[in-house]
């Protein structure tokens, strides 16, 4: 009798653990973003324990950001000097930075002045402040993109889905003034108009600039801006876990040896 009850409880707990495990393992094809919206999980070179950033995609993604996204979105946390992670040389970085102007000062006369940006400066925001950003965007605030892939459920998969999810609204859908319809946005109404169109940028490496390609590239780039230490982290993780695995085996042997006389 008790045995039966114990088995039943065991089953219940077992199924809870199992379902938790299934959830942890995450569905391979779709991720839920709340509100019943699901989107495809993409294959990224940077996924998995040995994943590395696709350098070429990062460079293209930087181009998409600077030529398209940067019109409205800031990238406050990223310093030009860190662009060396994209494979850019010191001179490339200097040249890239010099395209920007930053305010500095005060000088000895007490005046603020503008100067060319240097590698130690940060990406310059398109608007002076949040209110200016809202005023230029129909009251909506374009968020800073530095951490965007870590700040959204689904990360870069969601970002990719969002950028490729624009379409005409269904007939019965009441779209607000100045809003756009997006399959993957919560509530489907998004204040950001479709940002990417076919051949919107011209890639230096002659990759065809489809909407999907640009979305992918900028998603890779923004994954890097959100987690620049990712490659170091994974590399170190593999070493640390191998070390700990060996240590565990040795400690188990030690424990057995020490306890062999106890009974």
């Amino acid at each position, binding site marked *: 009798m008790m045995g039966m009850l114990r088995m039943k409880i065991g089953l219940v707990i077992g199924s809870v653990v199992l379902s938790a495990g299934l959830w942890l393992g995450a569905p391979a094809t779709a991720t839920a973003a709340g509100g019943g919206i699901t989107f495809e999980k993409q294959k990224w070179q940077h996924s998995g324990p040995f994943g590395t950033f696709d350098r070429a995609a990062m460079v293209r993604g930087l181009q998409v950001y600077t030529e398209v996204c940067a019109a409205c979105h800031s990238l406050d946390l990223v310093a030009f000097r860190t662009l060396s992670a994209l494979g850019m040389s010191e001179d490339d970085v200097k040249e890239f930075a010099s395209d920007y102007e930053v305010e500095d000062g005060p000088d000895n006369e007490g005046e603020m002045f503008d100067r060319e940006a240097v590698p130690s400066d940060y990406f310059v925001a398109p608007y002076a402040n949040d209110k200016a950003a809202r005023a230029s965007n129909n009251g909506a605030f374009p968020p800073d993109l530095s951490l965007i892939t870590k700040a959204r459920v689904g990360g870069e998969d969601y970002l990719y889905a969002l950028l490729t999810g624009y379409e005409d609204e269904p007939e019965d859908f009441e779209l607000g003034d100045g809003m756009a319809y997006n399959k993957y946005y919560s509530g489907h109404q998004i204040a950001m108009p479709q940002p990417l169109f076919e051949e919107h940028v011209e890639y230096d490496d002659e990759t065809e600039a489809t909407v999907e390609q640009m979305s992918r590239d900028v998603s890779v780039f923004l994954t890097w801006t959100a987690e620049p230490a990712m490659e170091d982290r994974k590399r170190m993780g593999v070493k640390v876990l191998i070390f*700990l695995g060996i240590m565990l085996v040795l400690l188990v042997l030690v424990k057995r040896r020490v306890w062999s006389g*106890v009974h």
Partner: protein
Amino acid sequence: MSGSTFETDNKLVNWFEKRLPIISLMHGAVVVYPTPKNLSWWWTFGSLAGVALVIMMATGIILAMHYTPHVDYAFLSVEHIMRDVNYGWLIRYVHSNTGSLFFMVVYIHIFRGLYYGSYKDPRELLWIIGLLIYVLMMATGFLGYVLPWGQMSFWAVTVITNLFSAVPIVGDAIVSWLWGGYAVGNPTLNRFFSLHYLLPFVIFAAVILHLWALHTSKSSNPLGVEVKTPQDTIPFHPYFTAKDLVGLAVFLIVLFFFVFFAPNYMGHPDNYITANPMVTPAHIVPEWYYLPFYAILRAIPDKLGGVIAMFGAIVILFLVPWLDTSKVRSSRFRPIYKQFFWILVLDCFVLGWVGANAPEGHFILIGRLATAYYFLHFLVILPIVGMIEKPLPLPESISQPVLKGEQE
């Protein structure tokens, strides 16, 4: 603490011993401490919790060197740690993930105590000090979660401090006293940082009391029968140092798996958005380790009632040594209570699941039933089962776990 047999020829040590017998004290506490030889792996979680506390303090002290407790800079200083400080990302991820695992370890430790009746006479104070540590941990964890000043930080502190406004008459005064103003702001963040730095040292002191009480009443064990002869025990070192080190290695593997391969798994994406008092997140959820209590809070349709129920759920644990009427400690010999123990575990998982979801639809009913069951367990089942249950025959001693004429 325990009777020490410490002796040495080392002149320096003896000079020291004569003036401050701390070496023999340590020797008695972690070397010769007589430990029941039948302790299972469930007994390794105590030392793991101690290690987690040390990791938290070590990483926390370094983080505090680079962190700025100001509403305008807190979020940026955390990102500065992640981007510019050498291995800052590692230190921060170790801190945040150890925080989560610390709770996991302590929950297992507490449930182990519940299963084996480790709180029963003469270990009531040991249990109570342990619960005080747990309460201090919850406070520290909450204060720490606020420091990055992300959206969840801000809204967690807003929701939780607002709970105190449910207190009649002085509620609002308490809330502004906690905030240091009329809204969650810079004074709030500053004092939270100060207290987050202070409380771990209080926890550390409580851990010493916990160990003192442990070494006075001695470790409980899976059989629940007291140590009778020296044959029942083995010295802590090398036996349990060796065993606990295996546990530690497994703990570190789990910890570093999260740190290196899923560092934000136990966090919430909204906390990578800077705190914004003008924008409320769609779902404000606390860290996973508070979810069962969050579910209890929301199960009661009245604000004050919810707060009382939530704190009651913790207070009731302090009364467990006196609510349990069983003559037998270990659930191994309690065929009926054992089943209820696992139902309680399941109930806590259900509460956690309800706490993670918005209080809508069937979650409201499930949350209420699970909350009612939680209190039912401690207030009704625990006392009554102890009275009516016929426990299995107990072994004579730890060394003779099998009764004459019985075979496992």
